[in-house]
């Protein structure tokens, strides 16, 4: 039950955040989508032993969060919910990597380095995806996908799925609440009603799809999903994409923290 309510809350929160009107929100959706894709590819392209040189990539989510005035806590919470899965796989690295390294006189398995590297990458990539949706919103993202020549049917279906998720989650939570009130102390749905419980939901779903279709037809639906006027890509949008891409590529080629560190320790000496 808490799982369902959390999901619903999470989706509505991101939906609300996407309606803000900050500098980032006003950017063209396609620019935000492309920047995110460049960011993800560059972050993921780092070798498995790299830690230091990935750090400058925290800059992008940081700036986006501040400029888009997004709350930090829900995003961090989401990352923490996903990280255990990565930890589950990554924690095995120290056991399987037989090589050891000496760092300040301490001998550790090189697997810890790869583990930390995966951990950081996971945090960054998950944040980037969530920031994309929190600053763009599903409808606008649909516009961006259409501009990238993703077929109309797919985008349409994606937007409809998104729209009806909240409706059906509410339906499921009502059904599960009713069930749990009739079966107190029972964990999950009993085997004897597996079929009828989920099957009922499907039947309701089909009926609802029928009603949805009828009401859509009444409002003039002809297979076209109108998303309002599509904004044009302005110079500002273009600069945003190019600016970040250049930064990502520079940070990929040069180890920025090392250069800064060298500069500082050199000056001190």
């Amino acid at each position: 039950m808490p799982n369902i309510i959390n999901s619903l809350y999470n989706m509505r929160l991101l939906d609300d955040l996407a309606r803000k009107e900050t500098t980032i929100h006003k950017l063209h959706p396609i620019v935000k989508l492309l920047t995110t894709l460049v960011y993800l590819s560059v972050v993921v392209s780092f070798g498995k032993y790299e830690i230091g040189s990935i750090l400058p990539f925290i800059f992008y989510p940081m700036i986006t969060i501040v400029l888009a005035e997004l709350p930090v806590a829900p995003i961090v919470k989401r990352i923490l919910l996903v990280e255990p899965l990565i930890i589950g796989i990554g924690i095995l690295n120290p056991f399987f990597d037989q090589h050891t390294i000496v760092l300040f006189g301490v001998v550790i398995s090189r697997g810890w380095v790869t583990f930390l590297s995966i951990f950081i990458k996971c945090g960054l990539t998950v944040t980037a995806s969530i920031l994309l949706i929190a600053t763009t919103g599903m409808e606008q993202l649909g516009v961006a996908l259409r501009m990238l020549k993703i077929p109309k049917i797919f985008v349409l279906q994606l937007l409809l799925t998104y729209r009806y998720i909240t409706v059906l989650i509410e339906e499921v939570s009502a059904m599960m609440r009713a069930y749990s009130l009739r079966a107190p102390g029972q964990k999950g749905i009993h085997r004897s009603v597996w079929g009828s419980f989920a099957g009922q939901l499907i039947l309701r779903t089909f009926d609802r799809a029928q009603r949805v279709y009828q009401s859509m037809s009444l409002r003039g639906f002809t297979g076209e999903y109108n998303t309002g006027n599509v904004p044009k890509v302005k110079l500002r949008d273009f600069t945003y994409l190019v600016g970040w891409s250049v930064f990502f590529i520079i940070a990929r080629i040069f180890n920025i923290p090392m250069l800064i560190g060298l500069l500082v320790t050199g000056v001190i000496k």
Partner: protein
Amino acid sequence: MRCADLRVLKGADIMHMADALISPVVGGIMLAATAGVATYSIKKIQNDMDDKKIPLMGVMGAFIFSAQMINFSIPGTGSSGHLGGGMILAILLGPYAGFLTMASILFIQALFFGDGGLLAYGCNVFNLGFYTCFIAYPLIYKCFTRKGITAKRIFGASMSSALIGLQMGAFSVVLETFLSGKTEIPFGTFILMMQPIHLAIGVVEGFVTATIVIFIWRARPEILEKSANLEALGNVSIKRVLTGALIAVVVMGGLFSGFASANSDGLEWSMEKTSGKSELKAPDGIHKTLRSIQTKTAFLPDYSFKTKVAESKEKPADQIGNAGPSINSGTSVSGIVGGILTLTLTAFTGFIISLLKKKKSKVNA
């Protein structure tokens, strides 16, 4: 009890590969393969598409999404399982619409919940949608139900197709993770971990799928008949999808084997392909200077730590060859100082911007 519950949950979620575990090359190839299958599916459903089917697909996607949150208690274990939904979609909507619906569910999950990433999107759609809709459904499910539908046949069909679809998906996850080379888990060990877990998950998935389909068949048989009839038109083309996938696999296999034997990470590999060198050569002047500073000082200079093999007797030859300049504590101090400074600088910039924003909003107010 909790522990078992977590294990089932985790098993299901491993199927959603994260961006951090794949390399850009593997992600890109799988994205291309998925796009190919999706384009073909769209073409196929356009033929028998009335505008009625789009809302149905949308609402069914939402159904699977919410049905994944139902806990089905597994008898005798005290734990509960969840529905994956790939088979249900294929059975109720047919393979093409089922595949597309799965693709949109995974897109939303990646964006809103961080379950599986955008780069790993191709992998995830393929692992969870392709094997169920285009292999398990036409080759196994249809085989069982060809001679007419009975409750027993539905059960056998759902169970075996869910099991096999999930096993193939799990194997695919292992293969993609292995080829990406981000984890150290040996291929064999990973297989021994994944396949049995997904055998257990597959049994639950098969049971749940079977009971739901039997229920629907009893309550509203016309729904199943309708999707089965649509299949009559799709039977020939499934062969084509398989041929297409086979070609994709052969091409991918060729690419992968080159990639795996080069034993380098994704970007370096693609650089090697495009420029003939494993690392891009920076032009002269400032780049050269910066480059030489970087190679001299890199905190983790291109994989070469001061490595000493645990069992020093069996020091592999490549390890010796690969061991670059050993890092002295001086440069690693610079590395750590630099790292801390980078983070501080980031935090500071963020702080300044938010300060400026607050000031601005005050002025406006």
